[in-house]
Structure formats: C-alpha cells, structure tokens
C-alpha cells in the first residue's frame, strides 16, 4: 500500500470516498509516524491515539453507509485527521498554550474554528507545540521544549505555530490549524516549507482561541498546498455570534482553475521589503517567484509602503499592551495551578511569577509600561496613530494592485539558541509579517525555493481585506507550475 502520510487533503478525500483506504488506516499511519519521529521533532504537545482511532472508526462507518447512497451529502473532511495548535480550545483535550500557567487546564468547550472542522467531519489528531501564549518566532518559548525543524533538526521551525508547521512538513499531519498575531502562521510555514494562510482580521471567529493581542489575533491553517489550505479556511470562515468582532460579510467563492492563468492580476513588489542585510538567497528566490507569476500572465509593478519601518516598534507596543490586559486573567484562582501564599495578593504574585516564562513576563512588563500613567500617550497612543499610517499605506497600494508580493522573513530558519539571549534580534525576524496584522489584511505564505543549506524559503502574498480568494488563486497557479510545495525533508 502507498504511504498514506504523503497524501494531500484532496487525495485523502478521494481515497476515503472510493474506499481505497480507511480513516482508521490513515490515522494509524499518522500515529505510527508520530511515534517514530516525535522524539526527534517534538511537534506535538499531546496526542490521544485511542480517542482519535475511535473517531476514525466512527468516520469509517459513516463512509461505509455513504458509499451505499453516494448521492447523499457527506461532510467534506469526513475521516480526515487534523492537528490543532495548543492555543485553541478542544473539549476534553488539555490546552496548555505552551505555558506552565495552564499546565493542568482542560477546556470544556470547542473553539468555533475547531467546532466547524468537527462539523465538517474532521478528527482531532493532536495539539501542537507553540511559543508560550503564541509569543515568539521559534517555539523556543514553549515551556515544554523546542520543536525542531524537519529540514534540519538543529534549526528552529519558526513560531509561534512551529509545532503545526513542523507536523505538516514532516507528514505527521495532513494539515493543521495555527494562529497568527504577528506572523505566527506565515513565518513557520516559510521556515518549514509549507503553505499557510493568515485570514483577514474578523474572518474566522476567535471564540475559544486563548487571547494574546485581541485586535491582531487571527486563526489560520497550514497545509501542503494553497488548495488544501483554502479548503480548511473556507470551512472555518464566516460570521459567529459568539465573537463580536467576527465579520458579517459573506464568504466569496474561491475559484482555483486547473489552468494557471494570472492575466489581469496586478502584483505589487514593495521596495521596503527587499532590504539590505536580508539573506541573498531569500531575495533571489522571491524575485524569481515573482517572475514566474509574471510569466503566468500577472503584471508586476513597484509599490511603496513608506511606513513599513515603523511596523516593528508599533507591533511591539500594541501587542504587549493588549497581552498585558488579556493575561491578567491568569491569577491562580479560577483555573490553572496555584502557588499558595498568605493573602490573595500573594497568590497572584507567586503564581504569575513562577508559572509565566521569560518572554511572557517580558511582554506583560512592556505592555504594562506602555499603558501606564505618564507613558500612555508617548508609547501606546503614538503606536496606535502610527498603525493608522501603516494601514493607510496598504489602502493606497491596493488602489494600484490586487496583491503585494514579498519575502515572509529576511532569512531562512535560524539555529536553535541563536537569538534566545537577544529578544530584539528575534523580533526582527517578524518585520515582513507584522504589517498585515496591523492593517488587518489577509496574507498567504508558500514555499518558493531553498537556500544553499537546504532550508526552505517562503514568499508572502498580501491582499485586500476579505480577498483571500485572490491570494489562494495566485498561489495555486504558482503551485501548478512549480514543485517546491511537494518536496519533503529526509527524516
């Protein structure tokens, strides 16, 4: 039998429907591979083999009945195991957020994004590793140990959705959910050579997502191709009354033609994203990919996003400010572990002091400072105004073009430990992904080559608010004529 772990979502859908293999066989193949590779990779924080296999058995029964009446509707992901980043609530599954402060927390309900995948027939394969509360660019901030990059185990997988990206790249999951507040889907997707979408802010409900930066947080998907990722995105997207910031706009159809034809698509290449100091191989691969899009019929023109350089300081004031408020809820009283003390106040100080990791404390402190009396206007207030200018840059650029093409990150995956002593150097890995979160626009990352050390390079396409469809269509056309997304690491 073929190795079921190499199949993409569409191949799995077909195989299950035709009865070429069962959901149980597929799930078993993935769990076996997880067993053999997890000691080296550590992409997962939890798996529940018996639980998932039981779900697979139920799915196989549903598939068996459906084959007798194939004209009946069948949920699109019936029997397909998906991995979930451990910041999204799945009822009955521990949700640690990569933190000791939630080391014993099991949510009693599903996040809406998860619930919609379950309604579509998906199985939960496991919860994936993440930087603590999604704060980080490498998964090194996970309290439960770093995830290793499947292309080179000495390198980080990126972050914060590094577990999800590594799981997809290493074929420990056909697809995975991630979250993206400043690049946390796109940067690990690029570092691991997979495709990942950060949707428009408000497009996917945040209900059941443990909050980090509430005006920036989005839930996205990672997979083997733009087509796979589009499939999962479309199932998650749409209005949810449980999230007041969830958009009421209908989800448009996503057309992915069989023929790569990008005539009429206007692509902008911003000079501010091709900076001195970036890795030459990254610039070359991205420019080459833009030329490929041009050969498929797209027109390419320079655009300018003049306030790009301010995105990093703006993000690292606004996101920590929001985080400092969101993480105030972890107090050792209602859930999570408690470090006891004589008074209630002692419980707060002790629990938070002992159970939060260094990066989370750093961002809580930074945000608290930016919001504190005497500094609010100079830091948080000024950052919010600068955010308006960054958003305005995109509004102007999108008067001329449909899509903006850039690198995902200035380098390929860095070595484990390379930036841990210098938080600012780590933050610089996010400079190309932060602006999309500040502007609330959708962005897609996908592989466009490798550097001289065999590490994947990612390109980012950013689009207009609620125009994920053009991003998927453009990347799909590229993937029809290239094979970067099909390459696999030797493991």
């Amino acid at each position, binding site marked *: 039998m073929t190795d079921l772990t190499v199949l993409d979502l569409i191949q799995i859908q077909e195989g299950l429907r035709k009865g070429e293999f069962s959901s149980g066989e597929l799930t078993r193949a993935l769990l076996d591979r997880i067993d053999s590779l997890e000691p080296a990779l550590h992409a997962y924080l939890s798996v529940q083999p018996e639980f998932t296999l039981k779900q697979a058995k139920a799915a196989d029964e549903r598939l068996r009945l459906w084959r007798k009446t194939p004209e009946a509707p069948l949920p699109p992901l019936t029997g397909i195991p998906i991995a979930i980043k451990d910041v999204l609530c799945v009822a009955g599954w521990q949700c640690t957020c990569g933190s000791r402060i939630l080391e*014993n*927390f*099991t949510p*009693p*309900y599903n996040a809406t994004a998860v619930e919609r995948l379950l309604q579509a027939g998906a199985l939960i394969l496991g919860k994936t590793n993440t930087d603590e509360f999604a704060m980080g660019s490498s998964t090194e901030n996970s309290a439960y140990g770093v995830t290793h990059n499947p292309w080179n185990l000495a390198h980080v997988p990126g972050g914060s959705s590094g577990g999800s990206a590594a799981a997809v790249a290493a074929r420990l999951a056909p697809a995975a959910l991630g979250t993206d507040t400043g690049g946390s889907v796109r940067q690990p997707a690029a570092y691991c050579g997979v495709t990942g979408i950060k949707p428009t802010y408000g497009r996917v409900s945040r209900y059941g997502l443990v909050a980090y930066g509430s*005006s920036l947080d989005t839930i996205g998907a990672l997979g083997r191709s733009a087509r796979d990722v589009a499939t999962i995105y479309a199932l998650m997207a749409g209005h949810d*009354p449980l999230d*007041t*910031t969830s*958009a*009421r706009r209908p989800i448009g159809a996503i057309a992915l033609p069989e023929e790569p034809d990008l005539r009429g698509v206007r692509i902008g290449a911003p000079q501010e994203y091709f900076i001195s100091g970036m890795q030459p191989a990254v610039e070359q691969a991205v420019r080459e990919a833009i030329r490929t899009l041009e050969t498929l019929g797209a027109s390419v023109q320079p655009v300018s996003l003049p306030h790009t350089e*301010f995105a*990093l*300081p*703006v993000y*690292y*004031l606004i996101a920590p400010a929001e985080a*400092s408020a969101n993480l*105030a809820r972890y107090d*050792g*009283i*209602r*859930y*999570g*572990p*408690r470090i006891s003390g004589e*008074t*209630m*106040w002692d*419980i*707060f*100080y*002790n629990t*938070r*002091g*002992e159970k939060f990791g*260094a990066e989370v*404390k*750093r961002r*809580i*402190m*930074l945000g*608290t*400072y930016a919001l*504190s009396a005497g500094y609010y206007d*100079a*830091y948080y*207030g*000024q*950052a*919010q*105004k*600068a*955010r*308006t*200018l960054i958003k305005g840059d995109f509004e102007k650029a999108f008067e001329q073009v449909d899509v903006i093409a850039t690198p995902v990150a200035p380098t390929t995956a860095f070595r484990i430990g390379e930036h841990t002593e210098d*938080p*600012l150097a780590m933050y610089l890995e996010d400079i190309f992904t932060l602006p999309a979160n*500040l502007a609330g626009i959708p962005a897609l990352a996908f592989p466009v080559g490798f550097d001289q050390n065999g590490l994947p390079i990612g390109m980012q396409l950013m689009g207009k*608010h609620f125009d994920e469809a053009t991003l998927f269509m453009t990347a799909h056309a590229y993937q029809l004529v290239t094979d970067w997304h099909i390459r696999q690491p030797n493991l």
Partner: protein
Amino acid sequence: MTLTLEQVDHIANLARLKLTDEERERFRQQLSAILEYAARLQALDTAGISPTASVLSQSAPGRPDIPRPGLSLAELFANAPDTEAEQFRIPPVFE
C-alpha cells in the same frame, strides 16, 4: 531610554509579577533596549492622525438577549485549584 530597577519594580507590581533579583536586572536591560528601539516612533509626525484601535469597519453589533444553555457549574469548577460548595476558595481578604 534606560529603566531603573525602581521602575522595573513598579511595572512588576502593576502587573502582579514576583521577580527574582536576576530577572529584575535582566528585564531592566532588555526592556531598556526594546524601549530604546521603540523610541524611533517619536520621530514620526502623527499630528492630526487618529489612532487605530480596531481595523474593523463595522461597529460591534448587539445581539438579541435570548437565554441559551451554558456550561454547568461542575464543568466550570473542574479546572479550579481550590473550591468549596461550588465557590472558588481563597485566603481571607478581610481580617
């Protein structure tokens, strides 16, 4: 921009974080460097620019106030570190 240890202690107190002496000094240096970097924002002319708190064009809409089932008390207390008679238990707040 250099923070003093007193400022670090003030922020940690506002954030209800107990820090070790080693953490106080490390955060003093690291936060100083980050704030130094963030100071470049001060050079940006934002006169007349309104702040962006949310990228959404829609205002937060209300919804009909209709009762619907919620989680049970047992589910809500299942994750609590210390409970008694369906309440969270904490040390005495009043003497």
